[in-house]
């Protein structure tokens, strides 16, 4: 049995704060091109993530080892047609080396969702979750809503067409990976809890989709993102197995301005059942009175669908904090093994090996975590 020292225990607590109580903002983009052409083919949100529609529930059932009824509480709690309920519970345990070595266990997600439709294509989407609270305001902020928005849909009940959302949500940008440590999320404009108030106009077509989001600094919660700005993402599906797209984001705060431009692409190789996803970003940051770091952020992930219930991701991340300065780059290799045991239960191994300034003797970091996820 391994005994942890005092500092190691303290470290585990801090690691739990860093890694834990995480928000799984998105679903699995691995399913686009490999299972469905669009995110809205499985999700209520046109940008993906969160509550599933009927086709998403069917997918959840068919990809699982022991397919069970995929509805809310296995369909045992009936809800009216206008109301969809759901939730996620998630925890993790494992080994972290950054470079201090420690063992940690922590909750990742305790979150509930609701979507209510009330005619003429209008609906309301909201979630609430237990989260780290605001210092000095713990009583009012131990649970709060990450996403809540009013949505108008051009063709109610369809998965395509025009969508307009107003409220609090993540600006639509990039690949939208579920794992928030992914470089293109952590350093790429959509870090954990970057949701804020905005307006999104989105058009989804089987052959292409466009998302334009304008957003402001959250006027209610002093969350880490302090910027106003806009984001745009356009994606064209060249064929049923290949999509290419472009992205742009501009943010402005009291401290800096950031311009991001990038490319996204997905390619599904049907015979080996492997999906390749690529995102590359260039970011220019303007800091007053002087300073303009230029960054490259890139991520390539290959996802293999193995058997009925397994999905294996191998990802490579690259981040150069300032391309004008030597040895400020870092690289990461990610490995995720998902086992969809039932339509509600998922077990995940997630591991990372990270190097700073590879080849120049910089420190390494990494983690190996076992996750358990239960979808209500």
């Amino acid at each position: 049995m391994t005994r942890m020292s005092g500092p190691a225990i303290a470290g585990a607590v801090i690691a739990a704060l860093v890694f834990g109580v995480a928000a799984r903002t998105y679903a699995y983009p691995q399913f686009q091109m490999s299972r469905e052409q669009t995110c809205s083919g499985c999700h209520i949100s046109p940008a993906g993530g969160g509550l599933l529609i009927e086709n998403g529930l069917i997918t959840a059932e068919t990809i699982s080892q022991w397919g069970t009824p995929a509805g809310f509480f296995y369909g045992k709690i009936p809800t009216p047609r206008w109301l969809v309920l759901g939730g996620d519970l998630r925890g993790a345990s494992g080994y972290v080396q950054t470079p201090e070595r420690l063992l940690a266990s922590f909750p990742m997600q305790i979150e509930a969702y609701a979507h209510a439709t009330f005619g003429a294509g209008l609906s309301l989407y909201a979630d609430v979750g237990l989260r780290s609270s605001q210092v000095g305001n713990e009583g009012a902020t131990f649970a709060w809503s990450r996403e809540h928005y009013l949505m108008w849909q051009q063709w109610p009940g369809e998965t395509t067409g025009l969508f307009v959302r107003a409220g609090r949500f993540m600006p639509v940008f990039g690949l939208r990976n579920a794992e928030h440590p992914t470089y293109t999320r952590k350093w790429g404009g959509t870090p954990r809890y970057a949701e804020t108030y905005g307006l999104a106009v989105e058009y989804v077509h089987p052959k292409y989709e466009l998302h334009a989001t304008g957003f402001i600094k959250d006027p209610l919660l002093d969350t880490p993102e302090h910027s106003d700005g806009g984001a745009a993402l356009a994606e064209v599906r060249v064929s049923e197995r290949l999509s290419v797209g472009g992205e742009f984001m501009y943010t402005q705060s009291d401290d800096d301005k950031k311009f991001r431009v990038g490319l996204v692409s997905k390619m599904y190789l049907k015979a080996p059942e492997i999906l390749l996803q690529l995102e590359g970003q260039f970011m220019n940051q303007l800091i007053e009175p002087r300073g303009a770091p230029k960054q490259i952020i890139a991520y390539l992930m290959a996802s293999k669908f193995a058997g009925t219930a397994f999905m294996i991701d191998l990802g490579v991340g690259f981040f150069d904090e300032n391309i004008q300065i030597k040895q400020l780059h870092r690289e990461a290799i990610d490995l995720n093994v998902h086992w969809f045991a039932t339509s509600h239960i998922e077990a995940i191994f997630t591991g990372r090996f990270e190097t700073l300034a590879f080849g120049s003797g910089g420190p390494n970091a990494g983690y190996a975590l076992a996750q358990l996820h239960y979808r209500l």
Partner: protein
Amino acid sequence: MYRLVLVAVVACAACTQTDNDRPATLEYITAAILQPSCSQYTCHSSFRRAKTYAFDTIEVARESLGRIVNPGDSQSSFLFLVLTRTVKRMPYDSPLAQKDIDLIARWIDDGAPGLAP
């Protein structure tokens, strides 16, 4: 095609790379290093203020850094200590690049200009 563009951008940048001539200012260090690396929601954000420190804006960083920096002496500054020690090193999820630590040390040794008096 875009891969070629990416490679070209990186190659051009690599040709003109310098050692570490970034501005050693409070504004640069906060916006380019501390905010993205240390100010995650659960850590040193204004929202959470872990250990009472916040680095997500220059305004709050000025106050927080004023308590953990000894201007003119990086080696005795608590900020430098937590970035370099082997136990409970910060940031917890991934260490800072050595050149970022060097820049912060240079800013402190230059007198930490910009800190609240």
